[in-house]
């Protein structure tokens, strides 16, 4: 699918074309589901659990139902539909038992928001509070309370996942490559440590919102702030046992997703309210507080890594244990586990690898997809570990990385051979090292240290990620020509701010040879109108939908040429075209305008040929396979995007306060379609990564109440938190099956920001952190070797933010067991 050639000859590819929907967004006219209301629409509110785990003894809805203006009240008892992406484990409203703080137990639809709120307050729920299991490591212990005692009865996707009934293990993914014991035996160094991160919230600026109308004959219409309209339709129909053609999902502009809107969330509840209210449309918008616990978050992770290294600094073996905290429901967390399991070592060659990756149920808000899909979390461990190893064996961390990074000829964890066109992590690492003058302080920096009394440190971290998607991930594009020669492009890929619509417009214009203003890619999605697309996730949109569009363009041109050849009495091979017409190459005056061909060509005598020009392109990921359940071997990766960050940080050696002075990032994007937008993804993701690194994370008390479900105590970066300098570098090693050579880059910018910062902080003041975020207090504690604070319930009893490394020289009998 590659159209690789010199950039200069492209009209639109590689150019900073302006965002196609910018003007509606800049003028306030862009319509989001939050902004919509329908005639007769009711407003929903949810009654939420104040407990992490409790038996629902009784729910009294009588006072709520009696309130004037209340049109529907629902509890779990009357809803026998279960949901789940990969493991069908979630009721629409809690039945029998609540499994996390903030879980929905009842819901109301009323004439106004005020009445709905009042009605929810009037619902009385009697609970028997049970001991929750809050820490995922505790949940693995013998005798831990079971979050899902009925796990063995749930439906799940057997090809990819392995739940363990009778435990809290929602999934165990394994990977075995080579002989890890042999690798350790041959190693001079064995270095082992554990790394942690807490749950984190996505924080899209538009909270989750849906309007649903359960119409006559079970025709359901859903307007939702969803990333993946076809997934909403699919899972909705599965839960309610409806044919797919009865349910229509419409998605207008979406105010940010970041993975949090990838699955199905509030839509089924709103649908049930609409049905109960006699088919009136019902709207539910999560409050910011609800966004933190009614809606899902990113899973916490405890990651233990044991690495064997040769005397020369080559990694010979690595054993990895991942414990992912799913929270109360499996949702995407099991797939995060699977996807992280097969990339768990970062962009390095590990000849002998052994991974057990667990997804563990706990009584906490549940985890879902989040930009990076596990890679932000485990790269924290991997890239802190790389620095640890380098220090332990007396090698420079940059040199150690370059020595072990994947390169052509390397074999990945799952057995894939890296080629010249897989992407170039070595250049990414070298470029960021150069951009921050890695390994030394400049005269200016030394002067700054003297002036401020603070210490400057530099750190680097590399990253990789492939789309986490089924082997049969597919999409399609339909390009319809209008009678004036303009075209409408229908694709299922969502615009959630990432700029795909503009990039697709550029690709279509380039491939058709049309002007940009002739192309309109539909922005709002409609499952009744647009062709199937799996999901808008995984940084795969531009490759798959881009390829489908290239094929659709070719189909459209071919059909146009056929009619034109007939009309012009020429061979199709002798024809060429521009934006306005098709003509005979050697006699340009013999031409037909696209407008005259668009809906069929009519001869002067009225006879007609052809018909409306419609180009269709289908594309499915090629060559991917399911992974062997015992060894994890197979081919899961559509493409690998490599990258690296280099960070300069300035740290107060007394207080632990710090400032990020510079971030340099490099990504091998294959081919830049739109520089302005690539930079937007690179910088936006990097700042989101800094948020994760510096300050974000859920804080619970010992009963499992979420203590910081708002911007007051869950801070996210502001303008003031930008580094003083940001540099974004792209490497262009073409992806041979990507349109124009592209590969995805939407998530990658967020990955490995935290460890690069951790490495910089350690270089500056020696603070050796194994837990993120790195709050100032954490840095202070680490500098002074104080007992860390555990606000995150990653371990019990208190104390988690430190893991002392084990470093030892060759011990042939070193056991594999943890």
């Amino acid at each position, binding site marked *: 699918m590659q159209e690789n050639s010199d950039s200069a000859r492209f009209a639109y590819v590689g150019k900073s074309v302006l965002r196609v929907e910018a003007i509606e967004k800049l003028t306030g006219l862009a319509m989001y589901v939050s902004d919509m209301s329908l005639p007769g629409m009711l407003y929903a509110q949810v009654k939420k659990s104040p407990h992490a785990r409790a038996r629902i003894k009784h729910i009294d809805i009588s006072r709520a139902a009696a309130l004037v203006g209340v049109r529907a009240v629902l509890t779990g008892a009357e809803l026998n539909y279960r949901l789940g992406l990969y493991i069908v484990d979630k009721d629409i409203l809690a039945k029998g038992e609540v499994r996390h703080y903030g879980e929905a137990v009842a819901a109301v639809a009323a004439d106004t928001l005020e009445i709905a709120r009042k009605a929810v307050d009037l619902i009385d729920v009697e609970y028997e509070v049970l001991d929750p299991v809050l820490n995922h490591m505790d949940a693995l212990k013998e005798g831990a309370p079971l979050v899902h005692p009925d796990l063995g009865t749930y439906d799940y996707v057997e090809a990819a996942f392995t739940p363990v009934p009778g435990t809290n293990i929602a999934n165990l993914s394994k990977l075995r490559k080579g002989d890890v014991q042999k690798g350790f035996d041959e190693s001079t160094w064995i270095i082992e440590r554990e790394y942690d991160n807490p749950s984190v919230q996505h924080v899209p600026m538009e909270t989750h919102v849906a309007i649903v109308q359960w119409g006559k004959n079970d025709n359901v219409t859903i307007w939702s702030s969803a990333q993946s309209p076809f997934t909403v339709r699919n899972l909705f129909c599965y839960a309610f046992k409806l044919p797919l053609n009865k349910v229509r999902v419409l998605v207008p502009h979406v105010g940010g997703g970041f993975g949090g809107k990838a699955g199905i969330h509030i839509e089924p509840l709103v649908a049930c309210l609409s049905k109960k209210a006699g088919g009136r449309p019902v709207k539910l918008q999560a409050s910011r507080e609800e966004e933190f616990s009614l809606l899902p978050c990113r899973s916490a992770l405890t990651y233990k890594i044991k690495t064997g290294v040769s005397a020369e600094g080559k990694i010979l073996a690595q054993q990895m244990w991942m414990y992912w905290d799913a929270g109360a429901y499996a949702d995407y967390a099991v797939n995060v586990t699977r996807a992280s399991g097969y990339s768990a070592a970062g962009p390095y060659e590990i000849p002998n690898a052994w991974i057990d990756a667990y997804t563990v149920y706990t009584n906490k808000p549940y985890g879902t997809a989040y930009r990076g899909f596990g890679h932000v979390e485990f790269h924290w461990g991997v890239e802190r570990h790389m620095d640890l190893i380098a220090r332990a064996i007396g090698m420079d961390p940059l040199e150690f990385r370059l020595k072990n990074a994947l390169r052509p000829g390397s074999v990945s964890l799952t057995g894939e051979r890296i080629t010249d066109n897989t992407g170039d992590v070595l250049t990414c690492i070298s470029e960021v090292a150069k951009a921050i003058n890695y390994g030394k302080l400049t005269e200016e920096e030394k002067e700054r240290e003297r002036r401020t009394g603070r210490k400057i440190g530099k750190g680097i971290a590399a990253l990789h990620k492939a789309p986490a998607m089924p082997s049969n991930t597919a999409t399609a594009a339909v390009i319809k020509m209008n009678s004036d020669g303009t075209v409408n492009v229908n694709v299922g890929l969502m615009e959630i701010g990432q700029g795909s619509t503009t990039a697709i417009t550029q690709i279509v214009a380039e491939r058709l040879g049309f002007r940009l203003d002739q192309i309109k890619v539909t922005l709002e999605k409609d499952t009744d109108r647009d062709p199937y697309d799996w999901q808008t996730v995984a940084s795969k949109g531009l490759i798959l939908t881009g390829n489908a569009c290239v094929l659709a363009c070719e189909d459209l041109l071919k059909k146009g040429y056929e009619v034109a050849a007939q009309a012009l009495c020429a061979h199709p091979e002798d024809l060429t075209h521009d934006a306005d017409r098709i003509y005979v190459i050697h006699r340009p005056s013999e031409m037909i305008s696209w407008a005259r061909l668009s809906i069929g060509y009519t001869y002067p005598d009225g006879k007609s040929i052809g018909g409306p020009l419609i180009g269709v392109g289908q594309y499915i990921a090629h060559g991917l396979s399911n992974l062997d359940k015992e060894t994890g071997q197979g081919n899961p990766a559509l493409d690998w995007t490599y990258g690296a960050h280099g960070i300069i940080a300035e740290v107060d050696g007394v207080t632990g306060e710090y400032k990020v002075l510079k971030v340099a990032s490099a990504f091998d994007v294959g081919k830049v379609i739109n520089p302005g937008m690539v930079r937007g993804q690179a910088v936006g993701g990097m700042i989101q990564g800094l948020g994760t690194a510096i300050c974000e994370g859920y804080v619970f008390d010992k009963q499992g109440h979420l203590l910081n479900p708002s911007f007051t105590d869950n801070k996210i970066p502001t303008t*003031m938190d930008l580094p003083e300098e940001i540099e974004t570098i792209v490497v262009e090693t073409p992806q041979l099956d990507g349109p124009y050579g592209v590969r995805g880059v939407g998530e990658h910018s967020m990955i490995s920001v935290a460890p690069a910062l951790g490495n910089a902080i350690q270089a500056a003041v020696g603070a050796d952190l194994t837990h993120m975020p790195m709050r100032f207090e954490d840095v202070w504690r680490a500098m002074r070797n104080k007992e860390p604070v555990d606000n995150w319930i990653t371990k019990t009893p208190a104390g988690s933010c430190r893991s002392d490394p084990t470093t030892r020289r060759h011990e042939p009998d070193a056991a594999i067991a943890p």
Partner: protein
Amino acid sequence: MLHQFSYVAPKSREELLDLLSTDYAHAKILAGGTDLLVNIRNGTVKPGMVIDIKKIKEFSGITYSKGEGLVLRPAVTINDVLRDPTVRDYFPLLQECGHDLASYQIRNRATVIGNVVNASPCSDMAPALLCLDSQVVLASSRGTRTVPLKEFFIGVKKTVLAPDEIVERIIVPTQAKGAIGKYRKLKRINGHDLGIIGVAVAVVNGHVRIAVSSAAPTPVVTEGLPMDIQVDEAVEITMNMISPISDVRCTKEYREFMVNTFVRRLLAEVRG
């Protein structure tokens, strides 16, 4: 979506005090609303009546005179203070603290007196006002009284304000004019955040004063300390007046350490 209440906007001080003399039990004063409306939304405050005082003409404006000192009235916002040339020239510590309060839009609405009356332990304006020995003028239909700000706070979000009283003015005395001071606030990010701790140190009238927020049930301040006080002694006096706790923002231990450190650093800065 807010709890239901009635709204009145008296046009004069007398009208306001009259209203409070009969209706105070369920009334809340609305000035900038940046705390009140958050609290109503959270359901922590459920007033029957909200009294908007911004339509009262004499409640606006910052004035300064030798006799009266700097007078801050109930509708004076943080941004009013940040723009005021008199404050800039003579009471710069107020601007330094004000500048660290929330975001620009909030500063457009939030009032100095509101920030004080809420008596939050993490008030940003209190450390400066305490250092500058400010006085609070309370008014009710029963008359007015003046209380030193130091005695105004009595507990977490508790003050000496009677239910029918309002704070009509905060007065920064003329003696504090030209005071040199510095404020340091520990935050979780560089952007707007509540103070995890705040320390102000000022040289006022030949004495050093140290005020601390977020480290005790109320913002606290030392007596005027001698200019040449030993650093360790100043730190000890400060540490004796605070009683920090651990919460989601920070531990007691780090709060204590940071107060200690900020006091040392700020003392060095203000003493030159």
